[in-house]
């Protein structure tokens, strides 16, 4: 047991944009309750600098939350050449939708592709299962 476990994991603010992924979408067509769908959905793509700020390694779990919800997902390093610290990407899924704000300013259209969250290392807490999201 190291001293580190007594320190609070650093928390950072992120802006999230969601995207589509054909492999995840294919897994969804086969089964929304399958392992593959969870593996391809319950992820957050982070800039390497944000991974460092969170004091985590790629593949660790992170708690992502805001006033609307909270999920534990796996941190992945985004493969974009250009840096994007402070911005993270989540594939459109029940995990991202747990965090999309309900406010629409009366338009009826939630901000699926532009919302804020905080992220914090989850200290090996397990990924939120699809049935636990609800």
């Amino acid at each position, binding site marked *: 047991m190291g001293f580190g476990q007594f320190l609070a994991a650093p928390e950072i603010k992120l*802006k999230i*944009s969601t*995207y*589509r*992924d*054909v*492999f995840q*979408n*294919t*897994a969804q*067509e*086969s*089964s*929304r*309750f*399958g392992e593959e769908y969870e593996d391809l959905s319950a992820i957050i793509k982070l800039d390497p600098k944000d991974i460092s700020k969170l004091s985590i390694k790629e593949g660790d779990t992170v708690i992502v939350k805001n006033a*609307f*919800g909270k999920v534990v997902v796996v941190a992945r390093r985004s493969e*974009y*050449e*250009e840096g*994007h610290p402070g*911005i993270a*990407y989540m594939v*459109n*899924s*029940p995990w991202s*939708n*747990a965090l*999309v*704000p*309900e406010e*629409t300013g*009366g*338009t*009826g*259209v*939630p*901000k*699926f*592709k*532009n919302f804020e969250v905080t992220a914090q290392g989850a200290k090996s807490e397990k990924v939120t299962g*699809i*049935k636990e*999201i*609800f």
Partner: protein
Amino acid sequence: MPLFLFLNVGDDLSEYYVCTGCALLCDDIEVETEDNKLTRVHAACLKGVARMKACSDPMECRVDGEKADIDSAIAKAAAILKNAKNPLIFGHGNSSSQAQKVAIGLARKTGAYIDDTSSFCQGPIVEAIVQDEFKTCTLDDIRHKADVIIFWGADPSNSHPRHLSRYSYFPRGKERQRGWEEDRTAISIDVRKSDTASICKDHRFYQIPMGEDAQFMEALLSALSGKVPKTSFDFDKKRILELANVLKKAKFGVICVGLGLVYSLEELEPLFKLMEKLNEVSNFHIMPMVGQYNMRGFNQNLFAETGYINRLKFNAETGETEHGAKYSVVEALRNRSVDAALVIGSDPLSSLPLSVARYLAEIPLITIDPCQSLTATRSTVTIPCALGGVESGGTAVRMDGVEIELKKIVETDNLSDEEILTRITEAI
């Protein structure tokens, strides 16, 4: 004897079917079947193959969590809708036009709210197209003529995998015989370097900050008008001017509008202005990147009957309609103004913000779908239906407005959603 006679190519693969994986409705699909299941699907994309081969966890017919026969499930569904004061009928994008028309009739009869996924995605663009406010074209026009193709907030490599290969970039067309190598310029305007952005040659990917699409449009408009393009995020002016030049020279241009752009624009005015300018100096069309295979069909069918594409409430007595954001699925659930819901071919508990969708689990809920979904797990009644375009036929409307006929490929014991909706309507 020449060798090709021995190859028997295509002997067993002579009939073409339509893929219902997305609103491209690819009509060049060949299949092999065994015991009323598709064992092989040829020509479709990864997602299309998965859709057509059917899910591994089909939905069961249940009432109050217990297994039920179809007759009692239909009776229960009818009772729920009859007893509700303000039911919601939602989904429709994965149904044939025939099923959609029955659903519209059911909404009229029960005085229901009726809405579909377009309400929180491509609705504004499709609405403007059906009202003739945007110049548009068909996917076939794009294949044969398009030389400048802008993917704006759109990533078809992931959302519509065969868009690039069948229509917009790679193919030889009647007036584009040299395909992508020489005849077509692909441009991506997006907040991130998507898979589609990475095929755009010669630095034709324009990365802009989140939410700044309208400002980039304004800058492009300036450049097209011979003014200096300015942005608050200091986008390289030379690059915008050079982009404007490419657009001016287009013989047949297209803006493929993705969700990234739809969500970023607070109103369509900047896009109207840009299109107006582009059509002064050049020739440009709008293509909505519609997701679900018959979302546009629903929008057109509802428009034909009511003059609105979505977000409606019928008055059961007078048949009159009320329309607006207040009647959208999101606002109706947020404001708890509905007291029962029928969901057809959709999974709002997955696709809506959870804080909005959560209310669905508190009211009597009916789901009609071929596959198990999160919404189904919270439903009072679940009725499995035939898989559209595989186990049942009908017609659907492609993203460009072209009607496509869907053929039934294999038999199933499940009724089609059209039959289920007809029986529910009759039972009320």
